């Protein structure tokens, strides 16, 4: 259990509070959609509604993360967000290719929904064009990925956030702040199994202690790539879901927990874990949970 000496930033992203000392605000769960194939909007609507119901019931906040793989999906996915997703709630846009990112930023701006957008993500691969586009079409929130190809340890992750590790001209935090993005979330960059994958979890308390920013990761990615689990197919989904409790346990603020259809398992797990943490930090540090915390709702 952790309590940090550095002041912890708490951001209010369209009504969802994220960050702070462990045990105050619940872990925010970010569930992904549209990783493969054509976007299935009927299924997506169901899954999102299920996730929102779980949030309401358990007190664990949720944010959908829309993965956009192709240009032809941009308009369709953004229209879906506009029409089918509650207009007061935040969402995350997850894109790898810089060109797609730029086109999506323009479209988000046009639809006037940048204030609800969490831009996933800014990293050392940011191009000048993407940077310029972000300055014009600035989302209110962004996830910064602390991936450092030169050093995958917690120190390497801090380095890339603080000074860019000589890969880019300045640190990712400075770049993001200068763009004008207000709410900065740090993703500790879970690596492949055997490639410092545990450092993503170990980095959470280090980054929170040094930078005070809301921190989390997509640790479930490591489970997805753990080939030995192929021999334990019935356990894979549970291992995937339960990997997320590491984030809360190490003081993290959000879990990018993978496919949204894992929500039924992940949400109760995290609610339980958050209650456990809250009980402990209240006893030991005197830290009280927020009114919306699962411990207030479920205990």
């Amino acid at each position, binding site marked *: 259990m952790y309590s940090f000496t550095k002041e912890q930033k708490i951001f209010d992203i369209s009504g969802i509070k994220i960050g702070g000392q462990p045990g105050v605000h619940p872990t925010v769960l970010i569930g992904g959609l549209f990783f493969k194939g054509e976007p299935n909007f009927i299924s997506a609507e169901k899954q999102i509604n299920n996730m929102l119901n779980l949030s309401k019931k358990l007190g664990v906040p949720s944010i959908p993360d829309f993965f956009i793989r192709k240009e032809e999906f941009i308009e369709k996915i953004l229209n879906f967000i506009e029409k089918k997703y509650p207009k007061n709630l935040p969402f995350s846009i997850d894109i*790898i290719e*810089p060109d797609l990112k730029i086109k999506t930023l323009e479209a988000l701006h046009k639809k006037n929904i940048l204030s609800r957008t969490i831009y996933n993500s800014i*990293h*050392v*691969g940011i*191009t000048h064009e993407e940077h310029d586009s972000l300055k014009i079409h600035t989302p209110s929130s962004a996830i910064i*990925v602390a*991936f450092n*190809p*030169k*050093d995958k340890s917690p*120190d*390497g992750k*801090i*380095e890339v956030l*603080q*000074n860019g590790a*000589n*890969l*880019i001209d300045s640190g990712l935090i400075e770049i993001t702040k200068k763009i004008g993005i207000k709410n900065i979330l740090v993703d500790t*960059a879970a*690596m*492949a199994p055997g*490639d410092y994958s545990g450092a993503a979890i170990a980095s959470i308390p280090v980054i929170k202690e040094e930078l005070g920013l809301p921190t989390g990761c997509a640790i479930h*990615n*490591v489970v*997805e*790539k753990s080939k030995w689990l192929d021999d334990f197919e019935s356990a894979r989904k549970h291992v995937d879901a339960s990997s997320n409790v590491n984030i809360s346990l190490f003081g993290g603020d959000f879990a990018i927990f993978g496919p949204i259809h894992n929500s039924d398992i992940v949400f109760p797990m995290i609610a339980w874990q958050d209650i456990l943490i809250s009980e402990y930090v209240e006893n030991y540090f005197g830290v009280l949970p927020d009114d919306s915390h699962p411990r207030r709702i479920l205990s």
Partner: protein
Amino acid sequence: MGKIKTSVIGSYPVDIDIFNHVKGYFNQNVISWDKYIESAVKDMLKSGIDIVSDGQTRDSFVNIFTRRLKGCRVRDRTEIIGKVDYDGPITIDDQKYVKNLVPKNRKLIGLITGPYTLTKSCVDLFYKNEKELAFDFATALNQEAKILQNHVDIIGIDEPFFSMGIPDYGKELIDTLTNGLTLPVRLHICGDISNVIAEILEMPVEILSHEFKASPKIFDSFKQYDVKKNICLGSVRSDLPDIESVDEIVKHIKKGIDIFGDKITQLAPDCGQRMLPRNVAFEKLKNLVKAGEIVYG
């Protein structure tokens, strides 16, 4: 005159495809760094350089070591947060890789950033005693050097901070680092070393390497000493992108011969070339090799 070799000091510029690494991360694939090392080594070989290095492409010459030593924490400047100690091989895997790229008629220099330079480059939050920290660095680096000598032909120690003044324990420090080494050791100190030449000449190394091109006044400073050590003559600038002509380098080497005679055993750039554009670094090396051939045949 056959013993003259062209060499490099250490770092070499490479074009890092950052987005490729990022894509690898998103796809959970490990992207190797080897291609950057290969790119640096191949440039050096193609330019005709006799003694090549791994190019120190991974990091700054300080962070390469502090990132892997116990007691160090890499931040804006490396912080010393515990007792500095060796934690296993630092540069060895890269040297093994480079060794396979280098033909038998070329040599490989293994580079170690000196203990005094590491000490001066770090923020000490633990020792509060510069000398103690420096000796712990030297002891740790000695372990690296002992393994390194099995994979390279010469050891290079980079101690730029000596140019600002050598502490009274400077010689003992280098002695600690080189203790038990059987390979020739080259000590590189760039900058204006006019005020510390007497101490440098006492160092327990075989070859002294200095920035003679950017600081030609050190030629004159050396005149008053009887130089018994071999010299690596810095002959092209590492801080300016202007490419020296072959003629200019030839003149410079001849000036060096006037002072050091046959003590010159290596020709090299003034310093690491990391900050130069890659094509400029390459052309400088090519001209250095051509000038060396003109002077020494």
